[in-house]
């Protein structure tokens, strides 16, 4: 589904990603862990086409298409989704209008008619239930005045609405209490099928108790320096990142 080859990217002239290689297949859950500043969030930003970053080398193929050649919106239409670490507040734009625009632009991309108002509201209702998102939040402006937990639930709600093929969850566990974490994880697990995949970016093992990864990768100084099964996350939890750093004195 996703093939990242020697991906390099920089911001304001500073190289952050220094040759990332990663393959993700349908049905898989990949966890990416790593110390602060290793490039985890940059990777998600580059994959979704954030204009603040410049790709300086490598390639990314997504379902056979050159992902890097697509606009952020077309990447979304092709089935890429990012759950933001810091979801953006958009005062004045209601959740309903925001989601309706998103759904209908995707339908347009696939040559479908816009969803009727009734069908749209039904879909909203259905998907809201997955993350127990209050109807009141859905009628407010996007993320405005939402608590940390509500924002993250709102991200998973949007994921449920858009039914992506590949979801990147960027530190979805940060700022969540244990109940909110369960709800969010339950949402993600409910949406998992044999045809979609997820990349879970996290600092902590905690989230991985709820969302079971098939592979765990360690990102350090812009490279994936270690890949293994779920047991790696436990090992990191126990030993920290120092032993990884020691293994790569050249970085």
């Amino acid at each position: 589904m996703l093939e990242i080859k020697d991906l390099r990217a920089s911001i304001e002239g500073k190289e952050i990603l220094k040759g990332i290689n990663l393959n993700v297949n349908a049905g898989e859950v990949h966890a990416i862990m790593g110390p602060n500043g290793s490039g985890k969030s940059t990777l998600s930003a580059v994959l979704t086409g954030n204009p603040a970053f410049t790709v300086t080398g490598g390639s990314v193929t997504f379902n056979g298409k050159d992902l890097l050649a697509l606009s952020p919106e077309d990447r979304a239409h092709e089935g890429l989704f990012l759950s933001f670490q810091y979801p953006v507040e958009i005062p004045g734009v209601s959740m309903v209008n925001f989601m309706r625009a998103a759904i209908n632009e995707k339908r347009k991309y696939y040559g479908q008619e816009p969803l009727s108002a009734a069908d749209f509201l039904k879909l909203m209702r259905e998907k809201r239930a997955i993350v127990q998102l209050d109807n009141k939040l859905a009628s407010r402006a996007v993320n405005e005045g939402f608590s940390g937990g509500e924002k993250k639930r709102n991200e998973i709600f949007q994921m449920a609405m858009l039914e992506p093929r590949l979801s990147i969850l960027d530190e979805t566990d940060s700022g969540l209490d244990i109940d909110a974490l369960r709800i969010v994880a339950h949402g993600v697990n409910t949406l998992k099928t044999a045809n979609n995949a997820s990349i879970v970016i996290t600092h902590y093992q905690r989230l991985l108790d709820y969302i079971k990864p098939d592979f765990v990768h360690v990102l350090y100084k812009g490279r994936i320096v270690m890949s293994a099964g779920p047991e790696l996350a436990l090992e990191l939890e126990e030993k920290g990142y120092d032993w990884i750093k020691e293994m790569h004195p050249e970085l």
Partner: protein
Amino acid sequence: MSALQQYIDLYNEHRQLVNGHAPQALNDLRPAALEALQGATLPAKGSEDYEATDLDAIFAPDYGVNMNRIQFQADQLASFSCDVPNLSTCLYFFHNDIFVPGRTARMNPDNPVVVESMVEAQQRHPELLKKYLGTLADLSKPEVALNTLLAQDGLFVYIPKGVTAEKTIQVVNIFNASQPLMAVRRVLVVADEDAHVRILTCDHTQNPDGQYLSSQVIEIVALKGATVDYYDMEESTSGTARVSSLFVDQQEGSNVLVDGITLLNGTTRNDFYVQVNGENAETHLLGMAIEGGTQHVDNHTYIGHNAPRCKSNEMFKYVVNDNAVGAFAGKILVKPDCPRVEAYQGNRNICAAPTAKMYTKPQLEIYTDDVKCSHGAAVGQLDDEALFYMRTRGISEDQARHLLMQAFVADVIEGVRLEALKDRLYHLTEKRFSGTLSLCGVCGSTDCSKHDKIK
């Protein structure tokens, strides 16, 4: 010859014609107007209070004035894109500057609300017209004196004591002429004690190729306990210039809302002067401009707090794109011995393109302790983070920009005290932002190159 002199000469040559068509109450004002104009010039760009707008240049073309009161037939339905669904209004038209009652304007003869041309008012309510006309308009402003010199007719609205005008009074100003034309409009609104009235006006230009200037002076008198809502919307063309001066006198306990909205225009200068003369009065002054192409919108406001315990709330918002120019100047003055005044002024602007220009000049002058006042002005761009967030959800950049711009002006629309009009404004601004606000059905096209499209 100066821009101003050509019109003074025009009046002097056709004095009898002008006065002959006009109500006596207007003619009575002309000597003072003429005197005020002696040796005066129209302010050029850069002069005090006209930093961004060249009034002299606006009046410089040799516009004709319809001295002979020649009627022209405007296609009211075709030009009438300002229909407000779910709002039952009493509808009136001005064709250039000639008053035409609309089909729905017929009122129940028992209805005490007066809406008529000033010529009619001279016959039916001469004492009211005489008492109030010209009492607020400041003749030291040459554009106001010029309007007073040349106006032949206008709109007169009077709401008697304690009466609520149930229906919104809607006035549609339609421009259409084969020659460059100046329409000289005059409006007088008097809300007597505890009277309530809502007025909605809109400017349209029917012929997008024409060159027009509308000179407008509006006087609004809100007596003790009266409530007046005055919504003034412009949806004209790039060939249309507009110079409008609105004066408000607020007496004790009155509540006045004035909302100036520019959706499409050429060059516009709107002045708003509000004198709060009675205690416990409340003022809402709102404005919004959506600009693209070479549109130019300059709103100039003054709120004078001349009495204690009054509240005023002012907010103007601009979205300026392409090569458009926006300007705002707002002054709030709290006179001595006016304690407990609360006055807030805000001006927020988005420059949506690097070539767009915005000028803003907020001013507070306070001569009383024990008041709460604030002002704030900001010019910024659309939020890049919000744009990217929306794009990752599949919303195209264009659409995301429209949604953000729409959201930006939402709080000004929320200030509208008429639900149906609020809905209509959301609809109109949405169309404006998406470039599908077709003008008056002139071309009917959803993508007319003549009407500047904002991105």
